[in-house]
Each structure stands twice: as C-alpha cells, then as structure tokens.
C-alpha cells in the first residue's frame, strides 16, 4: 500500500485518488451481494481501504456486478452504469457473470455480462469470500496504477457494439445513447 506516500500523491493525484477512494454502487444484482454487507461492516471493514457504499450512481465509481444478472436487471444495470461518472470500474462477482454459472440454462439470466457492459476484473467463487473481494480491490489498485482498468474507455470506443447487444436482449432502450457520436459513426 502506497497510500501514505506523499510524493506519489503529488505526482499522480488522479490515480491515487481513484485508487484509494472506491465508492461502490449500492446495487444488489444477484446473490453475491450477500458477501458485501459483511465486507463493509465490522468484521472485515472495507472502509479501511476507502471502499464505501455510495447512494447514487453519480457518486459512485465502482460497480460490483454481484452475481447473476437477470434480463430485467440488465436494464437498470446498463442505466446505472451509464449514469456513473468516468472513470468508473466494474468488477464481476463469482461464476454467474463469467459464463452463466449455476444459471447457465436459465431463460432469464444473462450468461456473459461482458457482452453488455465492460468488466475490469472478475472474481472467482460462488460466491467469492470476503478475502477474495479484498484481494480483488488490491488487484484493482494495481490495475488503476498501471492504467489497465480501462473498461469505461472500452465502453466508449465500442459503444455501438455494446448498445446493439443490449438492445438485442432488452429491445429498444428507452433512453438516448450515452455516446451518440459513436452510434452514428458506422451508420453514416
């Protein structure tokens, strides 16, 4: 942990700020959420790492896709993700977002979440233990440090692809594209 290094703060305040102040959006997309309260509360105390639950997507910069994503949940997830301010990071929790997990043959769950929104990191487990979540946070720090947590850039660059996939599952989305310029690029 280089949180205490003043020199680094002066050199890269942006990176350091994003690293040590991860505000997670409070959105229980699936059963993985059950490990979040213990992580945030007294036994594990994620606040030591600057991880906090944020009340609204505008204030958050970390999105935990906690477990399976049903079709109905995908809509608010996309909406919430688009509302978040850049830079924003997403972490997929457990098996289900990776490849369907337990619900690989369910008609109402999304099998691979990274087809619809970009994911910066995946945590194995069903569900991941608090330890895994902490290690994931440190890995995310490393990624931010190296500039590798670029999911939001990927989203911007391939917005058309993501938007098409979202509409394929959800039907026409009832909000305007986040990056309209990316949508028009190929059309014109």
């Amino acid at each position, binding site marked *: 942990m280089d949180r205490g290094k003043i020199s680094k703060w002066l050199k890269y305040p942006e990176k350091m700020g994003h690293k040590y102040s991860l505000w997670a959006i*409070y959105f*229980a997309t699936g059963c993985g959420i*059950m490990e979040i309260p213990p992580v945030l509360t007294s036994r594990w105390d994620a606040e030591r790492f600057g991880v906090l639950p944020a009340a609204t997507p505008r204030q958050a910069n970390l999105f935990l896709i906690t477990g*399976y994503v*049903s079709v109905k*949940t995908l809509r608010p997830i996309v909406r919430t993700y688009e509302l978040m301010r850049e830079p924003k990071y997403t972490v997929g929790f457990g098996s289900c977002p990776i490849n369907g997990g*337990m619900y690989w043959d*369910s008609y*109402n769950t999304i099998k691979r979440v990274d087809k619809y929104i970009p994911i910066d990191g995946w945590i194995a487990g069903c*569900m991941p233990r608090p330890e895994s979540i902490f290690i994931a946070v440190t890995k995310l720090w490393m990624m931010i440090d190296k500039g590798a947590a670029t999911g939001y850039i990927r989203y911007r660059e391939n917005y058309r692809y993501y938007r098409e996939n979202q509409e394929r599952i959800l039907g026409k989305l009832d909000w305007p594209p986040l990056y309209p310029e990316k949508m028009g690029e190929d059309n014109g």
Partner: protein
Amino acid sequence: MDERELELFFGPQHMGMVGNFSITLKVRGDRVVEARANPGYLHRGFAKMMEYRVWIQNFPLVCRINVMDPDPYELIYAMGVEELAGIEVPERAKYIRTIVMELSRLASHLAWIWAYGNALGFDTIGQWSMGDRDYIIDLLEFLTGGRIYHIYIWPGGVRRDLPDGFEEKTLKILDTLEGHLPEYDDVFFNNRLFVTRARGVAKITKEEAIELGATGQVLRATGVKMDIRKLEPYAAYPYLDFEIPVREDGDSYSRMMLIREEMDQSISIIRQCFKKMPKGPVYHRVPNPFKWKVPKGETYVRMESARGELGLYMVSTGEDKPYRVHFRPPSLPHGILILEKLLKGASIADVGHIMMSLYIAAPEVDR
C-alpha cells in the same frame, strides 16, 4: 407542503433496499399514495431449471433461491424427496439439520437487524449484527465447507458428520452472541428513537394478515400463534422444548421484536440439540444419481423458514427428474400484496423499514 404527485422508484438501485427489488411509489409530499411492488429482478426460473436436472443435481441448486436463508430450501427439498422416495433419515441427521436450521435462522435474523437498522439510517447496530453474523457464518463454514451456500442437507440425511470440536466452538460462539444481545437491546431495541419510528407503523390486523397470506413474523405479530415447527413438527423439533413468541400489535415494531425474541429461542434450541443428539450414522445412502428414479407421486411439504411458512409442492412421474416443482416462499405474499397495502399512506421515510419489517427476501419472491 408540495402537493404535486410524483412517481418515485424505490429500488432496485437504492440504498434503502436490501436485495434486488423495486417498488414504484406515487407520492404526494412525503406521503405514499400508491405503491406497486415490482419484483422479478432476480427471477431465474428455478422451477423450470429443476425439471432439467436429475434429483441430486437439484440439491446444490435449491439453496440459491434465498441467499439470506438458504438452508431451509435445502431441507425442504430433501424432505420432499425423502417423502416421495420413502427414505428414512437417521436420528442424528435430524438433530444436525435442526442445528443448521437454527444457525441459519440466527444468521438471517442478524442480517435482518442490519437491514432494518440500515433502513432507519442507523448503522451502529447493523455493523454489530453483521459482524456477529460472520461468526455464525464461520460456524456454518466449519461444518459444511461453504460460507453462504452450504449445500449440506441432502436427501437421505446430511452430507458429512459434525467435525471435531464443532460443539465446543458453537457453544462458545452462542455464549458470545448471548452476551452481545443485551447490548443490541440497549442500543437498538430499547432505543427510544427506534420505538417511536417503528411503533404503530404499518399496522395489519389479524384478519387481513390471514387473508393476504401472511405467515411467519408478520402473522405472529398480529397474535396468531402459527409456527410450522409446532403445527407440523419436522426434523428434531418434536423432541425439543421451545416457545413461539407472539405479539398482538401487528406493527413494524412487533415484527422486529419477534425477530429479536426468536433469536433467544434459536440459541436455546441449538443448545438442546447438542444435549440430546444421539450417536450414529448421519446419512442414509440414496441410489446413485444417474440411476435414481423417484417413485411416482406428489407431495406438499412445509416448514418454518426464518421468514415464515416455506412450502414445496413436488410432482414426480417416476422419472429421474422432477416433473414439477413449486416453491411456496413466505416472502411472496409479504412482498406484493401486503407490502402494497401497508405502504399505502405511509411516509416515504418509512418505506424502507416497512419493507424490512415484513422480512422480504427479494430472491425468494422471484425465485
């Protein structure tokens, strides 16, 4: 005051919401005019998925229905299969099942105190109860090898015998917990602000509760002494001595107090189980999973989960897979009609804790 009517989405992305659930509120000023529960964010179609899996493959699946209180689902599925297939469960396994049930109930109640405190904007109690819940999760992990999904109670008994030192460890943790509960009382349950916030809020009468399908704390808070553990005892409950706490008011406060009082009972039940538990086998082997065909028949089994009556209606046509499985989760009636009824006319500030007081687990509503 502002008298415009606004439409407000309470959830699914909302700090006051525990679980992926949504309520559409029509509000005028600070009052809810109309509430529409909007579940389905966690719908996975368990009943359908189970029709595609052989009997034993369903056993890791069912517990996923309710993440907060998974063990009752394992037990009820095991009970259903055992009844259809005519399997006798060893005595010791029954006691172990009871212990797991009560530990799960404790964990669920503690988590719910967190949720309720959170809804009131009171995080101190939540921090404590969630922290204490972790010790119970540790116990369950020690016993079953899983933190949240234990996959432990399976048709024919339980999956492994108690590990060495489990009893001492459990009793120690129960002692600690029992030491902490009076502190909970001091800080939360006796907190004047909690009492004023919760008392008299979201009242439901006995008749309404029965009519709308309420079970569990919601029903018991209206004065009906209804608990499947007494009504139709299963596992080791017939051999145990415990009480069913009942309150008369039917409000948010009573429901929360019942949760608190049930925790005392759970602790005492676990202690009794350890005292009375016989030695012997814990698993009656079922046929090999690829060949297991459960005889033709249907069954309705029910039990008392942390939230109320959990029912399972299961039909087998003599194949290696169930033909139809239908869970009757306690949260479904609570989460839609009762919630909508109680929210009507409530203050926005109370929406969260009314929902929490109804003990609604969103994944259970959706299945």
